[in-house]
C-alpha cells in the first residue's frame, strides 16, 4: 500500500487506497470527507496514513524520518497541555463537540506539523504551493477585496451555524440536527475554500497534462530514433554504395510520409492486420532480416492480442534486435517470447562482440530511450546483459493485468 502520486490532492492517500481496493478515487475521497465531518477521527486517520505510508515509488515513510526530528517531536509534545486545556474547557462549558473534536483535531495538528517538517522536497513544494494559494485567496487580482470579505463572512457564519445546529438541541426534530448541521458545515466549507479547491484541481490537471506531453515527446523521440536515426547510421555505413543508399533513403522517405500524413507510426505493429503478439514477432523477424541481412530465429510460446503495451514491448524488442544485427557482428539473432498469465517476457540474444554496458556513450539513445525508458513508461522492465567477446542478451518483461486477457 502506498500514497499515490497521480491521484493526489493533499497527500495522495485516497488515491493509494483506491488503487489498492480497485475503487474509484472519488468514492474514497467522499468517504474520507464524510467520516472526517462526522467524528473528526477521519482527519486523524488521514494524517496517520500520511505519516505511515510511503509515497509511490519510494520505501521511506515520512513517519520514519519524523522519529529522528527532535524539534518536531517537541512541538507535538507541547500540544498535549493544549489538549488537556481544551478538554477541560469543553467539559466546563458542557460543549460536547469541543471534547469530541478536540482529540482528533490535535492529533491532526500534530500530524500536520510532522508531515510539514519531514516531507521530502518535492512534497513540501506542493504543500507550500497549496498554503500560498490559500493565503493568497484574498489578494487575487480579479477578485475585489469586498467580495472576498463577504465570502469569508458568509462562509464563517454558515459554518458556525452548522456547528451550533449539531451541538445544540434547539431544533424540535432530532434527526434534523446531524443532517442539517453537517449540510450547513459543508456549505460553509465550500463557500470558504471552494475557490482554493478549484485552483488546486486546475493545477493538478495542468500538471497531469504536462506529464502526458512529456511522455508523448519521449515516445516520439524513441520512434524517430528507431526509424530515422537507424537509417542514417545504415546510410553512413554504406556510403560507398550509391544504390543501397538510394534504396534506404527511399524506404525511409516512404515511412516518414506515412507517419506524418497518414498517421501510421514507423515500424508500428498490427498495421498490416497482424493483431497478435506472435504475428508482431514474425514481423520483427522479417523486417530485421530484410534490412540487415542477419538471420533472426524467433520462438514464441503462447500468444496474446496486441494492445498498446504489447506494441511498446515489440518496439523495444525490435530495437534490441536491430542493435544486435547492426553492432554485434553475429550472423544470427535469437528472439524468445513467452506469454504467461501474469507477464510477457521477451529475450533478444546474440553471440557477437558484446560491449561494456557501463561505457555506452551518452548520445547513444538506443538502449536508454528506445528500450529501457519505453519499457518503464509501460510499466515493464528491461535488463541488458553483455559480456565483451561473448555476446549480449536483452531481457524485456511486461506485467499483464488481470482481466485484460
Amino acid at each position, binding site marked *: 500500500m502506498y500514497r499515490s502520486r497521480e491521484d493526489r490532492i493533499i497527500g495522495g492517500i485516497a488515491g493509494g487506497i483506491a488503487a489498492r481496493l480497485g475503487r474509484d478515487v472519488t468514492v474514497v475521497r467522499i468517504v474520507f470527507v464524510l467520516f472526517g465531518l462526522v467524528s473528526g477521527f477521519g482527519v486523524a486517520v488521514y494524517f496517520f496514513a500520511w505519516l505511515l505510508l510511503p509515497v509511490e515509488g519510494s520505501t521511506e515513510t515520512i513517519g520514519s524520518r519524523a522519529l529522528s526530528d527532535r524539534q518536531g517531536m517537541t512541538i507535538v509534545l507541547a500540544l498535549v497541555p493544549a489538549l488537556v486545556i481544551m478538554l477541560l474547557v469543553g467539559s466546563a462549558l458542557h460543549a460536547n463537540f469541543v471534547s469530541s473534536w478536540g482529540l482528533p483535531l490535535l492529533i491532526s495538528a500534530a500530524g500536520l506539523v510532522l508531515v510539514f517538517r519531514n516531507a521530502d522536497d518535492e512534497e513540501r513544494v506542493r504543500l507550500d504551493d497549496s498554503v500560498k494559494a490559500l493565503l493568497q485567496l484574498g489578494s487575487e487580482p480579479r477578485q475585489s477585496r469586498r467580495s472576498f470579505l463577504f465570502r469569508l463572512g458568509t462562509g464563517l457564519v454558515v459554518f458556525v451555524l452548522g456547528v451550533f445546529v449539531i451541538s445544540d438541541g434547539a431544533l424540535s426534530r432530532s434527526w434534523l440536527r446531524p443532517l442539517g448541521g453537517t449540510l450547513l458545515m459543508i456549505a460553509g466549507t465550500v463557500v470558504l475554500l471552494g475557490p482554493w479547491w478549484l485552483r488546486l484541481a486546475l493545477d493538478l490537471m495542468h500538471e497531469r497534462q504536462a506529464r502526458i506531453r512529456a511522455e508523448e515527446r519521449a515516445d516520439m523521440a524513441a520512434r524517430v530514433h528507431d526509424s530515422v536515426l537507424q537509417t542514417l547510421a545504415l546510410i553512413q555505413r554504406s556510403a560507398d554504395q550509391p544504390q543501397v543508399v538510394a534504396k534506404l533513403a527511399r524506404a525511409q522517405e516512404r515511412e516518414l510520409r506515412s507517419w506524418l500524413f497518414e498517421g501510421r507510426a514507423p515500424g508500428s505493429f498490427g498495421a498490416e492486420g497482424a493483431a*497478435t503478439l*506472435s504475428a508482431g514477432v514474425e514481423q520483427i523477424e522479417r523486417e530485421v532480416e530484410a534490412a540487415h541481412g542477419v*538471420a533472426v*530465429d524467433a*520462438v*514464441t*510460446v*503462447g*500468444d*496474446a*492480442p496486441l494492445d498498446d503495451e504489447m506494441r511498446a514491448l515489440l518496439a523495444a524488442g525490435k530495437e534490441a534486435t536491430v542493435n544486435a544485427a547492426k553492432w554485434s557482428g553475429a*550472423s*544470427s539473432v*535469437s528472439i*524468445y517470447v*513467452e*506469454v*504467461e*498469465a501474469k507477464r510477457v517476457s521477451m*529475450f533478444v*540474444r546474440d*553471440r557477437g562482440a558484446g560491449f561494456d554496458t557501463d561505457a555506452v556513450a551518452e548520445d547513444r539513445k538506443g538502449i536508454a530511450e528506445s528500450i529501457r525508458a519505453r519499457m518503464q513508461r509501460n510499466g515493464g522492465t528491461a535488463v541488458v546483459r553483455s559480456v565483451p567477446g561473448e555476446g549480449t*542478451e536483452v531481457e524485456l518483461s511486461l506485467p499483464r493485468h488481470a482481466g485484460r*486477457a
Partner: protein
Amino acid sequence: MNATRVPRVFLVDDHHLFRAGVRSELGDAVEVVGEADEVPAAIELISERLPDVVLLDVHMPGGGGKAVIEAIKPIHPEVTFLALSVSDAPEDVIAVIRAGARGYVTKTISGPELIDAVLRVADGDAVFSPRLAGFVLDAFASMPPEFDLPGPLDPELDHLSPREREVLRLIARGYTYKEVARELTISIKTVESHVSAVLRKLQLSTRHQLTKWATERRLI
C-alpha cells in the same frame, strides 16, 4: 555408436541442392553413406546400409519424415533420426518426434552446430533446437481445467518439472547446452539428461493430442 569411428550418416531430403549443401557442411566429421529424395527409396536404402544417424526432412511427398521413421523403427531400432527442416507447423514437428526422432533442428543451423547435433544423436542424446523447445513449452503449457483429456492424466508423463521447464526456456532463448549448464550451474550431462527426459515425455505423453488444441488456440 563406437567412439573410435565417425558416425555413418544418411540424408533424406527431396531437394538435391540441400542434400549437397548438408554434405559439404558435414565434411569429414561424419561418413555420409547414402542419400534419398523420396520415402520408399529412403526406407529401402536405410534398411540396407543401416546408418547410425538419418538426417530427415520433415516435409516430403509420400508421408514425410514420419513415414520413414515408422517403417524403419520397428525393424532396426538402433538407427537414430534427426529431423531437419526449414520451418514447420508445430504439429508436424511433434509428430516426427513422437514417431521416434531424437531431435529437431532448423535448416538455418550452422555447419559446426549441425555436426555437433549429429554426434549428440549418434550418442543417444536428444537435440532440441530453440524452436522445438518453444513447441514443447507450448504443448505442455497449462490448460484450462475444463479441457477434457482423452484418458487419465499421467503426472509422470504429462507435466514438465520446473527444472526441465527452465532448461527448455534457456534452449528456446538460444542457449547451447554448454551455456545452459553454466547458467544453471549444473553439468552438461545433467542438461542432456533433462532434455532426454523431456523427449521421452513428448514421445509417450497423451498430451500430444493437445498440440492441435494448443496451436489452434494459442491465446492464453
